[in-house]
């Protein structure tokens, strides 16, 4: 029973820290661009402001427009709850494995796109069209890199995957390196960062995600923004815990958990610095270069799978 409670606490931790980490990335980027950036608690203040404000709906918006933010938030937070953060073995990892996690994020994206199409504006259609296209190209790369991991671990259960990396030591596996590279490229595409999408833009030429949520306001917008921040933290934790899980607690012993929490935060900091550097260094790609970028991710994932068979499974 207590494991369920720890799982709940982990989920609340991710959900609660998401606005903070999103603002952290913004601040790091601002520093790199010689600005000061927003104060670290600004994310919470923005969400609180949006929750209080009166939502304004278009007159032809249907019930689906109003229901979509709840579904998006529910699916994304469930995906966050499935991901082990501090404890290696949480009960929800048996309820939904990594394929189900990808599918839950797909559910959230499906409803975002439907919400975008609901009002009948050109922005919504454009955002939905582009987002679903890129998602379709991301899925094979994402699932293929996950398959490399699950072939190494002989399981799609995330606890098992983390266990394998923890227990088999610092083995040099090129397949995992390729899978990590592919997953990194896919993360940038899925969370809508530069060079795929600009999270700070308000120009339609460069919009993908922003175009879909253009019509939302008030608490609906708050839920969707929050879900987006959770998604960024979720992907970061996914990469860190699947490929660099050292420090995670094997059992709910308070000392181990504190160490694991500190380790997690430290690793996140490193990852976010790298992310900020990457976003500042690269410019946004033309929309029709994104399929090439995703093709590169798919190729890396395939190379990972092939080198797994050729070099590691052997004869």
């Amino acid at each position, binding site marked *: 029973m207590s494991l369920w409670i720890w799982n709940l606490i982990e989920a609340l931790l991710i959900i609660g820290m998401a606005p903070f980490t999103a603002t952290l990335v913004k601040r790091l980027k601002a520093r790199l661009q010689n600005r000061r950036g927003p104060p670290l608690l600004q994310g919470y203040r923005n969400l609180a402001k949006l929750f209080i404000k009166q939502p304004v709906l278009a007159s032809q918006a249907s019930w689906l427009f109003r229901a979509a933010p709840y579904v998006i938030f529910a699916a994304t937070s469930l995906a966050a709850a499935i991901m082990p953060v501090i404890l290696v073995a949480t009960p929800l990892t048996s*309820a939904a494995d990594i394929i189900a996690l990808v599918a839950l994020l797909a559910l959230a994206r499906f409803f975002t796109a439907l919400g975008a199409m609901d009002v009948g504006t050109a922005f919504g259609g454009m955002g939905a069209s582009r987002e679903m296209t890129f998602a379709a190209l991301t899925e094979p790369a994402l699932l293929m890199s996950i398959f490399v991991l699950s072939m190494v671990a002989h399981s799609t259960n995330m606890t098992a995957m983390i266990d394998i990396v923890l227990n088999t030591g610092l083995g040099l596996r090129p397949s995992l390196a390729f899978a990590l590279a592919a997953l990194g490229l896919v993360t940038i595409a899925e969370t809508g960062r530069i060079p795929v999408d600009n999270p700070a833009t308000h120009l339609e030429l460069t919009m993908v995600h922003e175009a879909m949520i253009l019509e939302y306001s008030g608490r609906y917008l708050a839920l969707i923004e929050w879900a987006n921040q959770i998604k960024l933290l979720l992907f970061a934790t996914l990469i860190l815990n699947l490929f660099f899980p050292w420090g995670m607690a094997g059992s709910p012993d308070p000392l181990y958990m504190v160490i694991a929490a500190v380790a997690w935060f430290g690793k996140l900091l490193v990852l976010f610095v790298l992310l900020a550097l990457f976003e500042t260094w690269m410019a946004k790609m033309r929309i029709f270069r994104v399929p090439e970028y995703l093709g590169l991710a798919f190729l890396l994932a395939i190379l990972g799978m092939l080198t797994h068979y050729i070099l590691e499974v052997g004869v």
Partner: protein
Amino acid sequence: MFWALSAPSLALAAFVSGISLFGSHDIQRRVVCLLLVLSGMSAVIAGLAGLLASPITATLPIGLPWLPMHIRLDGLAGFFLLVIGLLVSAVSLYSMGYMRQLAARFNVTTLYVFMPLFVTGMLGVVIADDAYSFMIFWELMSVASYFLVTLDHEQDANRKAGFLYLLMAHLGGLLILGSFAVLYATSGSFEFDVMHNAVLTPTWASLSFILALCGFGMKAGLIPFHAWLPEAHPVAPSNASALMSGIMIKVAIFGFLRVVWDLVGLEHAAWWWGGLVLTAGSSSAVGGVLLALQQHDLKRLLAYHSVENIGIIAIGLGLGMIFAYYDYPTLAALGLVAALYHTLNHALFKGLLFMGAGAVLHSAHSRNMEQLGGLIQRMPRTAVLFLIGCISISALPPFNGFVSEWLTFQAALMAPQLKGTILAALIPFSAAMLALAGALAAACFVKVFGIVFQGSPRSQGAAEAHEVDGWMQLGMAIPAVLCLLLGVLPVWMIPLIDAVPDILVNATLGESVANSGWLWLTPIAEARASYSPIIVLLALLLAGGVFLFIQYRGAVKRRTAPWNCGYSYPNTRMQYTATSFSQPLRRIFANLYQTQDKLLRTEHGNTLLTKKIHYQVHVQDLIWRYFYLPIRQTIEWLTRQVDWLHEQQIHGYLTFTFITLLILLGMLL
């Protein structure tokens, strides 16, 4: 056995009443649909009996004196009876309302006569136990559906579609007959029992397999034999399309399982059988969905999606065959169960989607998505049911499409067990193609639901649409509820269909699936993978519910014009259309589509003063162009060579007769 026989008998009764009661349309409609519903329900009961009890066979004294009709009710037949029965009941309830408005435009007696015959044919194929009755019922099914397809025969295009359909159905039937002929030659009898026990040489087995794959593939719509699907399904009335797409192509899957897995037997399989099926399945999955994305005719789009889903089923079957060849019966059972589960799911959600398309067609008088829109306000309940169908087919939790795709992925992930073979490296490619197909399907159904139901109406017909009547809603609600149930309770469903893998590969998944209790789905072992749809559903409801609770105490909403980034109120012409939604994919996959587009501007004498712009884009099916057209041209060339035979005068024909007589006399003596 009684139930197994009552199902087709009730269907035949419906046929008879269809013929006889043409006096009053109302009574005819009620009686025929009621009898079909009863037929469907008895098929469901028979199916459950077949799955749970041991196999029964019987011989009926119908047919030729030395070829009586044998029937068998075992697990495989039972499962497909279940599939057929569920959808037939739902569609018949739907037809109660649908036929009423169809009667206004067409002579529906044709429907009342041929739909029961169609159902009888399908039921007969499933319970047949010898090749003769199998073929008779198969042909009955094909011919009856031809008449359903050409209901609206006034239009030239519809007649052509019907002709293509009939041609390919018969070609497929010939190939299947060839496969049975090989089996008859090696076993000496038409009965399935004898065929099952016969020993085949590898060449004969492979020949039978190829003929069966091509024949049943033609009926199921595997690439490259899929050309008839997108032509025939749109022109048929929607309840017929639902039956054809939902069940008829599944009967082809049944035929494949019966002939190749049961009669030929996987012990005769060569190493490349599974790989061929897997390749055909992967290309169908990706090709079907890519072509579906570019359609703007709602029913044609759904037909191409049927091609895609048959591809997914074939992937599961191919995986099963590969694992069976390398002697892993449990994994083969996993692949088979994934394919069977997807068969059931597809029947349900495709039937639901076609019924919804029929409802839209009836209300808004158009199948062209470019003329629909905003129907969620005018047809709210149909919209909800259609949305359930869209979510299910996009393989999203907690509905049923996700469960079967998850099972297929788990089967594909077992590939590393095949150490040291090239197949172990090929199977993940198929899994990647499956992932691509699934994501593209989600994109396509965002397009479908978004363009058809959301936004604002693009034509007068859409603006004046009305909600459909109770019967049609009930007919759609049944598959929708089943979609949710099958998504949440796979742990009960999979042990139920255990009889099928037991017969075909001598392995069952029942114990391992329910190993950890009713809450967790663990196909092979708990350490390997597990999924608990109930927990997922509850967690989703909980997370959403918390915030809904907050909403009740939140600020009141205000309605006004859309923000639209500050631009003025959008009119219906400013929305995205079906063609524009799929433009990015059209551009990315331009090589596969070979798009041809045309842009015409009408101007007021100067390029700056444009009056009207007409943009037309045409997407080709490359398989039609490079596979079917050359075949047609070859046949035309061949017939032209033989033309001279038809252009003789009296002397010529007398000479032919004389020569034939000489030859026959020569042969006799």
